[in-house]
């Protein structure tokens, strides 16, 4: 089974994150990390390959330091990495990004067929959750998204992937025959930590760097030029004023009730 897992380098969720005047995420390179939810995607891919054999290729699209996300995946056990790096990509919206990701997956598939594309359920920077569905559509793959459980079994029709997912009003089990695209939630598994052996081994693993020209993606579909939306205003939310902090002396419940009444919240 050949699995491509998408990994994204994002500003650390614990750090102070900001938007620049151009409405883009400020990437000062310092405190970036692999998108936490992509660790669940990497784990899901590794578990499947441990069970069924095959290889895991970690794919990222992003500026120079985005390769860190690929490195992390390699340390965890992915076999190879691909980093699509091109200045023209900066400022891409979801559709620009998806065009590049799809082209990269197609290129990998032309070498050796790709059975499964695995992604995290969302990027913890933009948090739109749009990439998995859009990429499945672009690649014309069946989509099994938001998996909190994932299994792949050999069946008569080939590999069959099965996911359980919780939606707002229902719980579902979906099935499809591979090739397919799966997105996983943080419920799907417990990501492993890289160990010393993994860290050493990762140094020898290949990371292919590709530019847009290698993928045949035109510069006008990506970057700010290709973006279909633009941020026209971005401002840090004002901090809350008139904050009250009380220590309970036996009447805090009464004070809370009074506060809610005073502020017309009941």
């Amino acid at each position, binding site marked *: 089974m050949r699995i491509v897992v998408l990994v994204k380098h994002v500003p650390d*969720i614990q750090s102070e*994150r*900001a*938007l620049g005047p151009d*409405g883009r995420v400020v990437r000062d390179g310092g405190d970036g990390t692999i998108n936490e939810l992509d660790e669940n995607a990497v784990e899901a891919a590794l578990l499947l390959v441990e069970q069924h054999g095959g290889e895991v290729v970690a794919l990222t699209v992003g500026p120079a330091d985005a390769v860190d996300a690929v490195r992390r995946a390699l340390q965890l056990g992915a076999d190879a990495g691909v980093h699509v790096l091109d200045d023209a990509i900066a400022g891409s919206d*979801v*559709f620009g990004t*998806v065009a590049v990701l799809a082209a990269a997956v197609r290129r990998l598939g032309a070498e050796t067929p790709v059975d499964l594309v695995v992604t995290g*359920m969302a990027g*913890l920077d*933009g*948090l739109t*959750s*749009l990439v*998995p*569905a*859009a990429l499945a*559509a672009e690649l014309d793959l*069946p*989509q*099994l998204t938001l998996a*909190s459980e994932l299994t792949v079994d050999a069946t008569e029709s080939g590999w069959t992937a*099965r996911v*359980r997912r*919780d*939606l707002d009003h*229902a*719980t*579902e*089990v*979906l*099935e*499809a025959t591979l090739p397919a695209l799966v997105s996983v*939630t943080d*419920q799907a598994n417990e990501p492993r930590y890289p160990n010393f052996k993994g860290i050493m081994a990762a140094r020898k693993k290949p990371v292919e760097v590709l530019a847009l020209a290698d993928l045949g993606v035109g510069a006008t579909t990506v970057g700010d030029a290709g973006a*279909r*939306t*633009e*941020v026209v205003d*971005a*401002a840090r*939310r004002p901090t809350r004023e*008139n904050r*009250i*902090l*009380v*220590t*309970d002396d036996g*009447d*805090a*419940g*009464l*004070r*809370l*009730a009074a*506060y*809610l*009444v005073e502020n017309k*919240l*009941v």
Partner: protein
Amino acid sequence: MTTPVTGPVLVLLDHAADGGLRQPVLELLTAARALGTVHGAWTADADGSDPDARTLELLGTYGVETVHRLDVGDADVRLTPVLAQGLTALVQSAGASVLLLTSSFENKEVAARVGLATGAGVVVDASAVEVADDRVVAAKTVFAGTWNTRCAVRTPLAVIALKAGSVQAEPAAERVTATVVAQAVTVDDGARRVRVTEHTERAASTRPDLAAAQVVVVGGRGTNGDFALLEELADVLGGAVGATRVATDEGWIGHDAQIGQTGVTVAPQLYIGAGVSGAVHHRGGMQSAGTIVAINNDPEAPIFEIADFGIVGDLFTVLPQATAELRRLKG
């Protein structure tokens, strides 16, 4: 200034299996009226049923003139690729300028796919939408609710997913008669490759929907699993009950109650968190609440950094006292 868009605004009319409209749909319709002429997209159930008379009347009250009943034949409309193909066809046949949906996980997937198929600009998790300088502009908060942004759509069709609870639902000044137009769409084989082998609707709760509730009472690890205390307070306040991931992982409450970056995003008028530390993953789903109340026995808990009213204390004494007092005050 708001000038209406040229084509109709198509609103996806999410409804339960019994045909009842989901609460946030009325909010979408209210937002849609400010943008232009409102059309609805109704997905026919397996038996091809129309919205019933009561639902149609409600839609008319909210200014919906035309309801497109989407019929996808024997394809499963619960699958987002199927729904997305149907809506793409509807958007095109109605000449819509805007497609509005509730920002649920399923609908965000639909938005992504319609955007891909039509070339539309997409904004999800929006908290408001307007027309400014002849473009559709959506407001949204990012980075765990710490930044406010406004995003303009550059394309002729805008696909906007609005968060539940962002708009106050209000009937139109004048009611209209909603007429149903059947729209049969042939879905291609590609959208049918996924099979739904199990589908269990969650039992409807008597409390408001978490995502749309104006008051949300949230329990974390500190509750030790005692959600009865929270439910009592939620009942007095007419609110919904939510939880942190720790509480759902412990099985104290269903996973659907989880608030945060991998759970539900809420933006209620009032958020009350008890025994919740305020981890950044949780804050991402609640930080844009109007008023934040926190009860925690650790004065260093990060949630106090964002609380309007913080109580350093034991939730097992504070909550029952507050609930009893509110009951008394309400008489």
